[in-house]
């Protein structure tokens, strides 16, 4: 008998995504509404049926283009009448916003919650590349006071430190790490919305310029414009929706290590271990049941670390698992980031992985649909101290 977590009383009933591009030059609120309206229509619901809203990150956070639309902007633009709403950045990864929707439904505060994440970093950053905003260039305070004075200015720097630690301890190589990027590009070629689709070989990867050792340009995701939205519904209300509901089996939100990027007790387990363990404790499914994995790759090493944190590969063995790339290909034993990840399909910031997992579980992946018939998908978002994960399935409970 399945051990049902409270999560299983909810389901993903609708998904939507705007156009996605490197620089679309479109009002980010408009992109956001495109995704939201598509998700509501996909669920077969009316705008009036939406009684909750949840988003990441809300105002006042991040660099240029990090936040495409605040909760109040979307609620007002759509004239939503909500019984519960929330936004915020201090949450278990970007998908923490979806967790809160599940919780609000279980607490009886809402029935159909619209969740979205909207970015326009591509347009906002212009052609100058990824540089710091003016606010970050002034005197360093908060957590940044311990890193910015040392030129540790990007999450890339913080995460490169984890990558070096994994290589030092386990002998993980750049060739193994590079398979994450090569695999993403191979899948992106079959995704009409992907940012980068030109073929990439491992040699191309190794030849890309060094950003912060051992991470190269092709280890870094691609800032873009685009919005992604979901409708999360109470399961008994999902009977009325048009799409096949995807069950939320379990989710993981735990943070048991230091809440500071440079202070993890074990630098090689700096991503989501506690959250993943919690997720597995809330379901009768096991890592062996996972048919495909959509794991956050804001930097390639994060996907490698998530493979281990999610217990899909034993700790220390992700490098050898990735060797050659066959295991993670769409016809491999664990298809990974089947849409191209953020590395090649664009930095839709966590929500892209969840969207792709639902798409694959529904069998709607088109040219990139995995060759198996997947029934269970593992989804992870975030890195460092902001990590969350989901287990989704096609099971009807």
């Amino acid at each position, binding site marked *: 008998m399945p051990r049902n977590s409270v999560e299983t009383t909810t389901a993903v009933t609708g998904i939507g995504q705007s156009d996605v591009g490197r620089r679309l030059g479109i009002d980010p609120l408009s992109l956001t509404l495109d995704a939201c309206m598509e998700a509501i229509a996909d669920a077969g619901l009316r705008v009036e049926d939406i009684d909750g809203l949840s988003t990441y990150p809300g105002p006042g956070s991040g660099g240029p283009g990090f936040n495409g639309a605040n909760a109040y902007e979307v609620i007002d633009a759509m004239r939503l009448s909500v019984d519960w709403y929330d936004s915020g950045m201090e949450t278990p990864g970007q998908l923490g916003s979806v967790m809160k929707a599940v919780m609000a439904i279980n607490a009886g505060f809402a029935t159909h919650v619209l969740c979205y994440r909207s970015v326009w970093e591509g347009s906002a950053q212009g052609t100058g590349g990824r540089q710091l905003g003016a606010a970050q260039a002034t005197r360093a305070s908060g957590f940044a006071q311990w890193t910015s004075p040392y030129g540790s200015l990007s999450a890339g720097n913080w995460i490169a430190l984890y990558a070096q630690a994994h290589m030092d301890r386990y002998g993980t190589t750049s060739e193994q790490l590079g398979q994450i990027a090569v695999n993403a590009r191979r899948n992106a070629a079959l995704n009409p919305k992907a940012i980068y689709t030109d073929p990439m070989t491992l040699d191309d990867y190794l030849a890309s310029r060094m950003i912060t050792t051992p991470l190269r340009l092709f280890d870094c995701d691609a800032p873009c414009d685009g919005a992604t939205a979901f409708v999360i519904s109470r399961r008994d209300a999902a009977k009325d929706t048009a799409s096949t509901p995807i069950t939320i089996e379990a989710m993981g939100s735990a943070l048991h290590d230091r809440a*500071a990027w440079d202070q993890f007790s074990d630098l090689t387990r700096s991503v989501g271990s506690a959250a993943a363990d919690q997720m597995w404790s809330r379901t009768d499914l096991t890592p062996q049941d996972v048919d495909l994995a959509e794991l956050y790759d804001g930097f390639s090493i994060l996907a490698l670390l998530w493979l281990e944190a999610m217990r899909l590969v034993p700790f220390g063995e992700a490098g050898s698992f990735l060797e050659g790339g066959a295991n993670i290909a769409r016809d491999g034993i664990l298809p990974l980031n089947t849409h191209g990840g953020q590395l090649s399909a664009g930095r839709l910031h966590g929500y892209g992985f969840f969207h792709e997992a639902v798409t694959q579980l529904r069998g709607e992946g088109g040219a990139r649909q995995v060759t198996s018939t997947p029934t269970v998908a593992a989804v992870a978002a975030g890195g460092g101290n902001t990590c969350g994960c989901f287990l989704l399935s096609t099971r009807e409970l």
Partner: protein
Amino acid sequence: MTDQAAPFRILPELSDRSRHFWTGGEVGELRILRCQDCGYYLHPPASICPKDRSRNVAPEAVSGRGTVATFTINHQRWMPDLEVPYVIALISLPEQPELRLTTNLVNCEPYEVHSGMAVQVLFEHRSDDQGEMWIPLFEPAQEA
């Protein structure tokens, strides 16, 4: 890295919680908060000991020695005035397991840095309208 022109840095905000860390270098001391009741060091500074929850914490000088826990050589010019490459390192201090700080490793070739390398503190004197500060940096340890 022995040239006289100091590299571009975003300077830290000096607060009551952090001032000891950024000014101890005036007298050659790397200062870390320590619980005065149980002896536990804590970094970054907070006004409570995470071990016994004592509020009786105060800065103390540590040895200034350490080892490289992990590192990265940054090549990306995140800001126009940055001079690259430079080494960002996490240094483990010998005073306590997992007592660690982010810093720059200087006075060495970036590609000669390796994890486990023995290092020692040095300070870079800076000032702005908050006053003077001494940024703790690390360099390869000299033979004891």
